[in-house]
């Protein structure tokens, strides 16, 4: 499989202005400027294959947007190299621009006072899109994203969901090979989020578009990404699929057994279970078990059913949220 995005040893540092609080500090800052060096990204290497959807997560300030900027050619890394489809996005900006599409969740590229068709015409001319291709794409997107209902209204009259759908179409009109999505589902209601995710999956399937998705919404990650990359404090913490992630970060399943009678700690050999890596808590009428997500539970449960009057069992798989949170704390 060909590698579409190759980033090697990327590093980036900023100079940031430091200012004291209050009126005194404001006056001071008029005359002197103090700066502090911040290492935003430290030696990150990434490799993304054609057709992958990679989820890029990390807490705020982790260095996500800095990395994305370096990958899209907006920012020059202090060290390291980037290749998108074999092109250095920084040296060959124009060439690279034809290959990439960008959707910013909080910003729009659509002209505010005009219907979306005007923006699309503009993009057609800008990217020199072939007439046939343009018409085909436009019709496809109108159909899939249901743009027909609001195509003639000005963008300012559209809801966030409608705008987002139009935004996606705009980013894909020129058939980019790589799509960068920066918080694409932010602020959207549940139904629209579902539809956008469907759309993303679809264009990935049908057009084999490689997607790098930055998001705080874990459902996005769960539903879309074949691979997750976690970054924190400017460093790469983890890169792999959700299975590997569960393993690495010690993700646990939670099993709650509801009982018809009170149960006491002495009745269970807690230390025996702890040796196997199973954590058990007793809480009056329930037994709460935390077990490694990858281990099968049927044996354990049948044993407990023999021992105790269990009337109901809840099993909660490891939430990606929890795993990612674990990852953040590494």
């Amino acid at each position, binding site marked *: 499989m060909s590698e579409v995005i190759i980033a090697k040893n990327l590093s980036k540092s900023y100079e940031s202005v430091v200012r004291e609080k209050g009126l005194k500090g404001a006056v001071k800052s008029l005359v002197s400027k103090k700066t502090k060096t911040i290492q935003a990204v430290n030696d990150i290497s990434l490799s993304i294959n054609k057709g992958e959807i990679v989820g890029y997560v990390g807490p705020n300030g982790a260095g996500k947007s*800095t990395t994305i900027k370096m990958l*899209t*050619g*907006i*920012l*020059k890394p202090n060290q390291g190299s980037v290749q998108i489809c074999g092109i250095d996005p920084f040296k060959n900006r124009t060439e690279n621009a034809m290959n990439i599409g960008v959707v910013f969740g909080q910003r729009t590229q659509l002209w505010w*006072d005009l219907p979306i068709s005007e923006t699309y015409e503009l993009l057609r*001319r*800008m990217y*020199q899109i072939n007439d046939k291709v343009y018409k085909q794409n436009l019709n496809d997107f109108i159909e899939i994203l249901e743009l027909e209902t609001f195509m003639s209204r000005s963008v300012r009259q559209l809801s966030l969901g409608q705008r987002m759908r139009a935004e996606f179409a705009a980013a894909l009109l020129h058939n980019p090979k790589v799509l960068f999505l920066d918080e694409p589902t932010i602020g959207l209601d549940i139904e629209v989020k579902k539809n956008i995710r469907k759309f993303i999956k679809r264009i990935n399937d049908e057009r084999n578009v490689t997607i790098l998705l930055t998001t705080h919404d874990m459902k996005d990650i769960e539903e879309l990404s074949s691979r997750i990359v976690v970054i924190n404090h400017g460093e790469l913490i983890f890169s792999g699929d959700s299975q590997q992630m569960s393993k690495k970060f010690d993700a646990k399943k939670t099993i709650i057994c509801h009982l018809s009678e009170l149960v006491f700690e002495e009745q269970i050999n807690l230390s025996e279970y702890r040796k196997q890596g199973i954590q058990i808590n007793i809480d009056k009428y329930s037994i709460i078990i935390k077990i490694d997500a990858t281990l099968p539970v049927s044996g354990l449960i049948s044993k407990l059913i023999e021992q105790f009057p269990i009337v109901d069992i809840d099993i909660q798989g490891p939430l990606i949220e929890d795993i990612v949170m674990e990852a953040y704390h590494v």
Partner: protein
Amino acid sequence: MGVKHYFKLWIIFLSCNLQSKISHKLDFILGILATIFMQGCSFIFLWSIFSQIDVLSGWSFYEISILFGYISIANGLEEIFLNGTWELPGIYIRRGELDRLLTRPVNPLFLILANCMELHGVGSFLFGIVIMLHSFMQLGASLSFVNILFVFISIISSTVIFFSINLITGTLSFWVTDSMPAMVMVQRLNQLGQYPINIYNKVVKFVLTWVVPFAFVSYFPADFILNSNMLGLFSPIFACVFFFLAYSFFKLSLKRYESAGG
């Protein structure tokens, strides 16, 4: 990405801008009125002065009106076609919209300019044309082909100089938090170009000629037409050089932006 491509792209931008501005009719009309009044009021100042005197530093009322005309026209044209530089500090740099421009397969400065056309500059432009035509007629200037050609060319070069000055001050916002006040302050200096530069002291004359060359926007072209001052003939060449300097500064600053991360 040839010239033809850029031109066709620019036409679409023009169409979008027109549609967008006309959708706010009241704002559009107020804008035009505003530019007319802005030029008009400083012109009334001139008129009031000339109700008391006949000549100012050897220039008559109509001769100075030509200076006003040049400034008005250059101002107007710059606002209509080259106004994007005013959005550089706030929208593109501070808000970060410049980043998106850098993902486009088109020259970023072109996009900055094409995105923003302030059509109310028409007011300034028309005011300037009217004043200029009227003054030329009153002065009995000959309508020779050479004269008309020169006026036409000098108007373009004046606009380019006007724009280049704004490009430089706008580009400063790559280096300083917000260069908007500096932009406005320097642009305001164009008022000095409304009068013959000999009323100013040596330092100011120098600055107006070689640092913030508003003298080449109005005074020298007019001086060439009225008094055959040869320096005026070179204003178009000066315009080219100055624009080259301004654009180089912009490119340099953009490189730094990409390195430092804004």
